[in-house]
């Protein structure tokens, strides 16, 4: 009896003291079957997460979108960009996590999972390169390793190129469709460095290998990784982000027809190669060639998908509250600045039937406008308008505007190698402040909109600035 009692009590106590962590510890994961498959998919997911933050915050900091409500950043539109801003920290955290995840895959997972293939290694190098590419395009400086010295953009772009080249070495044959993207990414990095020859060389390689190449970042609404920008421009019933009125016809690039519909985001596409080549041609005053390249680009853009859907829930602001009103009918004509002509066709009717919007690339630039443009600067302005329109909602515009985010205060607190100049944002002096990037006047009687600043013209006027137009 005593023994039974004692044993029962001991068993009860022993069992009561046991806990079992239902999560997977690191060693268990590394020894599990197919760990590289899971890790590579996780890295792709991390890239999608990173792109979400990049697009949400950089589109606001540019002239593309304005936050007309209260969610998301209320200061990037100004633009006020402080190292203490958690949103600044969020973007770089995600970029660093992407880098760390790719590195861990290459240095740890690949060595533990004997089934790791070169194609998988190539993709990990590619994602690591993308982390460097985003760091080099968007930040004044960022560390490239745990608590490392913040590197200037050029070093990141070179590091990106090195990673993309390793990807090509491992899996760069024509049979691998991704290898077009590796080359396109190198071209993009060389453009950032201002290296015309290499940029154009890789751009042409990419076009040869895939004239209509498109690589997208995928999302998964069922599993809580949505295209966040889609929420702000379409899914939210509150019309959160509003496009600059002259870009109205391109909005929303992402939309949904059900609760689980979340759209992919293009991050490498053949249009980029044409834009790089044309920019080099304009820089070298090859105006005829540039016109031809831009016309080729229009042809490619014309082949991209357009979709009809209802956007009747979009109000473009409301009367009565304190939400800025935007033009909401095709009757509006929009001028890119007070010095520009009023143009029709830039604003869509949204209440009277489905809209027809480009989901990859769209533009208001026509073959005629390219032909009519007089001189290199007018063509250059058109080229930057093309870049803005083709890349809208892809997080590319602030790089063209020369705006760069600083190293965050949280990094500075934990990393003694961060010096104070790296914690200041780069906002070139020609960037208008006090919401100037998004400002316009709306005449509801005459149905006209005049945008305050034509940033594409201002960019061309400042083409020799070290912050913008890398080929000039």
């Amino acid at each position: 009896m005593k023994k039974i009692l004692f044993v029962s009590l001991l068993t009860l106590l022993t069992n009561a003291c046991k806990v079992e962590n239902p999560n997977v510890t690191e060693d268990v994961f590394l020894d599990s079957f197919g760990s590289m498959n899971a890790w590579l998919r996780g890295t792709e997911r991390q890239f999608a997460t990173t792109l979400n933050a990049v697009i949400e915050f950089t589109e606001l900091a540019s002239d593309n979108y304005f936050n007309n409500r209260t969610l998301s950043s209320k200061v990037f539109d100004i633009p006020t960009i402080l190292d203490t801003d958690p949103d600044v920290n969020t973007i770089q955290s995600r970029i660093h996590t992407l880098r760390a995840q790719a590195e861990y895959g290459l240095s740890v997972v690949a060595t533990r999972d004997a089934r790791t293939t070169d194609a998988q290694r190539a993709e990990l190098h590619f994602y690591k390169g993308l982390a460097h590419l985003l760091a080099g395009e968007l930040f004044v400086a960022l560390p490239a390793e745990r608590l490392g010295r913040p590197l200037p953009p050029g070093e990141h772009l070179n590091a990106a190129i090195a990673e993309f080249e390793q990807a090509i070495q491992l899996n760069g044959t024509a049979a691998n469709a991704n290898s077009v993207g590796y080359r396109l990414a190198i071209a993009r990095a060389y453009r950032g460095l201002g290296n015309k020859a290499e940029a154009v060389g890789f751009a042409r390689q990419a076009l040869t290998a895939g004239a209509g190449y498109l690589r997208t970042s995928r999302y998964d609404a069922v599993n809580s990784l949505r295209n966040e920008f889609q929420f702000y421009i379409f899914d939210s019933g509150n019309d959160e982000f509003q496009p600059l009125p002259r870009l109205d016809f391109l909005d929303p690039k992402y939309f949904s027809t059900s609760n689980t519909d979340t759209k992919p985001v293009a991050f490498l596409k053949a249009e980029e190669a044409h834009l790089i080549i044309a920019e080099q041609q304009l820089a070298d005053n090859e105006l005829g060639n540039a016109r031809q390249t831009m016309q080729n680009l229009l042809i490619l853009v014309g082949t991209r998908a357009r979709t009809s859907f209802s956007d009747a829930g979009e109000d473009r602001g409301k009367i009565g509250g304190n939400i800025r009103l935007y033009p909401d009918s095709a009757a509006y004509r929009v001028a890119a600045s007070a010095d520009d002509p009023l143009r029709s066709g830039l604003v869509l009717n949204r209440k009277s039937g489905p809209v027809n919007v480009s989901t990859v690339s769209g533009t208001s630039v026509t073959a005629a406008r390219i032909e009519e443009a007089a001189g290199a600067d007018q063509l250059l302005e058109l080229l930057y308008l093309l870049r803005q329109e083709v890349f809208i909602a892809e997080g590319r515009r602030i790089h063209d505007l020369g705006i760069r985010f600083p190293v965050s205060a949280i990094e500075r607190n934990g990393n003694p190698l961060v010096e104070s100049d790296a914690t200041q944002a780069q906002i070139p002096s020609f960037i208008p402040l006090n919401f100037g990037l998004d400002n316009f006047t709306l005449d509801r009687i005459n149905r006209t909109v005049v945008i305050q600043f034509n940033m594409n013209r201002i960019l061309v006027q400042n083409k020799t600035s070290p912050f913008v137009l890398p080929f000039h």
Partner: protein
Amino acid sequence: MKTRFLLLLAAAWLPSALLAQSYQVTGKVTDRATGEPLPGVNVALLNTTQGTVTDVDGSFVLPNLAAQSYRIGFSFIGYKTQALVVRVPQEGELTPALESDVIGLDAVVVTGQGLEVAKRRLSTNVSTIGRAQIERSPATRLDQLLQAQLPNAQIRLNTSQPGATSMIRSRGVVSAAVSATPVIYVDGVRMDNLNTAATLSLNTSGNRHNGDATGSVADIPLENIDRIEYISGGAATTLYGSDAANGVIQIFTRRGGAGTTRVSLETNVGAETPTTDFYYFDRTADLLFRDGLYQQYRLAMDGGNQNFGYSFSGSFLDTEGTRIHRQNANRRYDFRTSFKAKPNAKITYLSSFGFSNSRFSRVRNGNAGGYTGLWFAEAGQSAPGFGFNNRLDDLNEEEYGRVAEFVSKAEALQNYGGNTNRFQTSQSLEFTPLPQLRLKGTAGLDFRSSSEKGIETNEYLIHTKVVAANTENRGRISRYERRFAGLTLEATAQHTANWRDFSFISTLGSQLFRNEDNQVELTGEDLREGSQLVSDASVRSGRDLRLQVVNYGIYAQENVGFREKYYLEFGLRADGNSAFGANIGLQTYPKVGLSYILSEEGFMQRIPFLSSAKLRANYGVAGNFPPPFANERTTGFSPFLNASTARFGQYGNPDLRPEKTYTFEAGTDLSLANDRFSVGFTYYHATTRDALLWVPLAPSIGEPVQLQNVGKILNRGVEIAANFAVINNQNLTLRLNASLNTLHNRVLSTGGTAPFAINGFSARTVQSLVAEGQEMGVIRGSRATFGPDGTLLESDPVAYIANPLPNTFGNLGLNLAYQSRLTFFATADYQTGAQQHSFDRQFRFNHGLDEPRVPAKALADAGNSRNALWLNVTNVFVESTDYLKVRLVGVNYSLPPKWHGKIVKGIEVGFTAVNPFNFAASSFDPEVDHSGSRDPDPNSLTGTAQNGASVGGFNYSTSSPNRQWLGNVRIRF
């Protein structure tokens, strides 16, 4: 062995009267001041294990006594213990009259001591709430019951929605990672005290479930409570080790009466009305609220004899709530049954079972977005979101009719709610082999199962303009299931000894508790109209979560008395816990204290007005263990595109250990003028070292946060509680009580960690932070400075603009009794020195409504763009939240016996008003402070920190706790 045991058992049950010639002692115990009989008084034969309790008439019988002298002790909460020497056989009846004991030097307490110890021996303060106080409150949840009753604690119900979380805190906020809610025990068994949203739970209030999450404190079964003890931390809680830095609440249930069976029936019926004092628009009340019916019925019975007692109490509650379309209705069943058996003089078996079932409805509140009733009305959102004129009071009847019609439908179409089932049991065996040695073993379980669901139909989404008209595939459903099982095992031995002028109480014990928390979320998209099942949705998904923690500890305590006036206590607890890091072994918690009964000194007894005086001082340590599994490094998985994907999981920390609060306190308890006036004064100084912080790692590390023991938090203040018997005679007594507590809180160090948010909204609007050198939960937002003409001179976007913690708080109470038949009572609580931010007000400004606090010049300079200005002037919307709230006002009348005959033993009728009066410095309700907690770990499933720290501080479209006007009848048989 088996035969011997059976014989022993049989012998124990044989009536001892058969074995020897025996006598009995009878008597009746009364209140000395009023002459009224006192039921429930403990009557003990001192130096033996024999005793009983008085019945409803104050009578008692002690049978089976031999012919000799006995010392009989009479003890009862709130009265001074009395001892009488009786010669058996007894002549006549004993009629002890007990004197009320304001300080309670001889009252015994259990919480924090292992087993019963008289308060005079303690160097710490224990608050006790007796049955009388409990019975007069119509509260249906523990936190509401304790509101304005615990002199040193602040308790707030953050919303009128049923079953929701609350805020309970006393000595400031000792942790930046763990909720301030004390641990709660029922009959020695640890309860699930989750007072924040669970990680996977219904969210009807938006960002981090601020305010309207379902909590576990709300559904602790409340039936049959005998008394509640509360200790607020420091040395008093040291014996609870790694679990008690926030203090301990312990509920003791009735274990059965003595004498004949007593039955009582009780009903509370009345109206619930919305608290609309603070609404900006007069019409908000009409738009969203209606008076509701409140009804509660209770049946209780108990009885027994010297060796066996039983007790049962069950109640049914039905409230309609005050929201239109009865969207806050609550129906609840509660019961508890308890037994006490004493098979022989040495063994006592105690058992209690409690059960509650609660079913409630919810509506969208706070920051839920889209259509949210109060946001729509009070924050001016009806204009930008829905195209109405948002000046509700200026609308003509036709315009208002359209708004009301829209709102009525939007409210009616909401379908949120939940239900919980909770079962508790405590089983104890006491063994007293010798009069001076007691052993007690307790085992118990708290099992709580909660289900919540939210359904948003296409019709609702279309009506509230979330989706376009004619949409047919956006309906959605979410369901949440949480199962909590908590096991407690405790064994304690207490030895008492006397040697010359010394007395010793030695305690040795061990305790183990284990909590298991399983959560499941199921969601479905494209739900057909009318369905309430995830199964009917076309796209279904799920998530789950499991948390387990085990804490095991041993403790020893010695309490040495000298001449009944000097006491020294010291003790130590050592704990192991599954949430500690691999490098961390047992954690120890010491305490030491002195108690000095000054009034026992001869020279003090000559002071005519001094009734009793006690000085006390102590130093002790108590802890909070880290959240489960935060110690282990893991790989995380996020499903993506129909395949498993791996990522960095939790960073882990092999050095993770509990945060420890080191408290020094000193105080005195004085009673003057024959106990007419008493006051307790305590100074405390509590420093939390190794405070747990979710440290954001430098981004370049590539992983987001790590839980580290790097913080240091200070709380210090004084606690004063006073009672004053203004009138005290046979016919009339008037007692007043008041408490005053001060609080100085500082985050002394965050170990270099940058400020991080524990509550609030986006970093660009307004957040509550942990920041070095600031008060816990300091509110950060933009601070505007204006010139004399109203020009905006500067706006600092990251300024500290408000402190939500009060620097003074306390309670007030009044009790007026006429001939012990007619009683009038009132309780209130107050605070000063705190501030809150009003997001409703800031929204109103942004949405075009009048706001005198923003200078017209600043608005004109901003081109009359409120959108450009509103987030640069956040400090303008901070208000002082000094308040005084009257919680209870009531009157009870006990009918004279001639009115009800003999079968009925008593009839009491009463009327109680709950929350009748509010006085506040702020334009909003300061009690409704949106105190959800957010998870700093971006990898967390939902961003909600389960059991995380929060201090509230935000007014945001949340309804105030209701008023209740209740008639009460209690009939005793």
